[in-house]
């Protein structure tokens, strides 16, 4: 029995052990991706945590609306991005200047400490590049590049025209490129 079938029969609701297990697996398999997409959109861990939980609860409570079980992950992504967009709309502007003080433990045994430092530095640099984009540019770019939506779908999600979304996507790409080129020359 496929996972989708199991989820469907179980209805995500832990009526029995198998259903509970299917629900836990659904959460475990998707949580990291959902959290990261929301985190990139809202810009801080605390809000991303709350919104991730909210998205999963919404999804699992509304599982009756899910028609194609094979698209459960995609459906969850839509709920997650909508939850984050609603949050951004409610709060107007969010804080993108969260400073990460705690150093990440060096988890990869294959990488040397020097490599790990370089990798972390590069990641932080790219992170900073993303943070330079406006909220709308970043959200449009994330939905386009990470969630794989086309411009029309992004426009529907953000509640604006396709032309506006194209403009956000293009501006985001150009700004990100300019940031990377400036960093190279420094």
């Amino acid at each position, binding site marked *: 029995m496929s996972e989708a079938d199991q989820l469907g029969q179980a209805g995500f609701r832990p009526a029995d052990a198998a259903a509970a297990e299917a629900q836990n697996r659904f959460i475990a398999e998707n949580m990291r991706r959902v*959290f990261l997409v929301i985190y990139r959109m809202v810009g801080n*861990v605390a809000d991303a*945590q709350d919104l991730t939980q909210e998205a999963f609860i919404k999804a699992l409570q509304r599982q009756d609306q899910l028609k194609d079980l094979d698209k459960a992950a995609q459906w969850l992504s839509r709920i997650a991005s909508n939850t984050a967009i609603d949050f951004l709309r409610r709060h107007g502007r969010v804080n993108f200047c969260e400073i*990460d003080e705690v150093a990440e433990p060096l988890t990869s045994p294959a990488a040397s400490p020097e490599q790990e430092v370089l990798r972390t530095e590069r990641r932080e640099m790219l992170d900073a590049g*993303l943070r330079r984009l406006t909220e709308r540019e970043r959200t449009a*770019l994330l939905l386009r*590049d990470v969630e794989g939506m086309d411009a029309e779908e992004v426009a529907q999600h953000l509640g604006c025209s396709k032309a506006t979304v194209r403009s956000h996507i293009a501006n985001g*790409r150009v700004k990100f490129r300019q940031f990377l080129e400036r960093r190279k020359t420094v």
Partner: protein
Amino acid sequence: MTSRHPSEIDLALYSSGDQAMYERLKTALHVRRCAHCSGRVVAYRGDGEVVKNVSLTMPSSVDWERLSEEMTGNIHVGLAAGECVGPVHSNVKQVARGGMGWQKGLVFAGLGIVMLGAWWLNTASVETTAMGRIGRALWTGTPVAMLADPGVSVEASPGGVVVKENGSSMALTSSGSRPVAVSVSLQGAARARYMDDDTGQMTITTVYVQ
């Protein structure tokens, strides 16, 4: 070959296939023959992958193990709370729709009947009789004045107030005066108001029928 380079915006959109049809063809024609723009398109495509990778990389400050456990726990608590709250909502809806609906209607109907009865009992019998007469008049199409009492009628006219019974009549007139207004009330009374042309005095004549 088109000599002018497309803008950075156009190249960025072209790299991800987000340009409109005509623009896309135009840019493609240029990019095919321009090494500089071709390089820019490759760079933008690479950036798309970079954005994706960076976005899906956990921030260094996050202790994912702890956070994911905490979130999983909270999700289960939220779902359990939702399960508890759900039936209460549905019960409330059920009561509002089914249980309380007809009961409320019954209570309001009872109150309405009591209030109507109280008003009817507290209204003067003359008025209720008159209203009964009006009701009957509307039902039968007979003029109100003829229903005051079988064989008795009261008329208010510019000439005065006239009471007619069994073929004989009694008229109250005010000669020499100019009639101002005549009226018939629901209680069966007829009223005529006259103004004396010389003195300007007002005379009011009212005949009550019982």
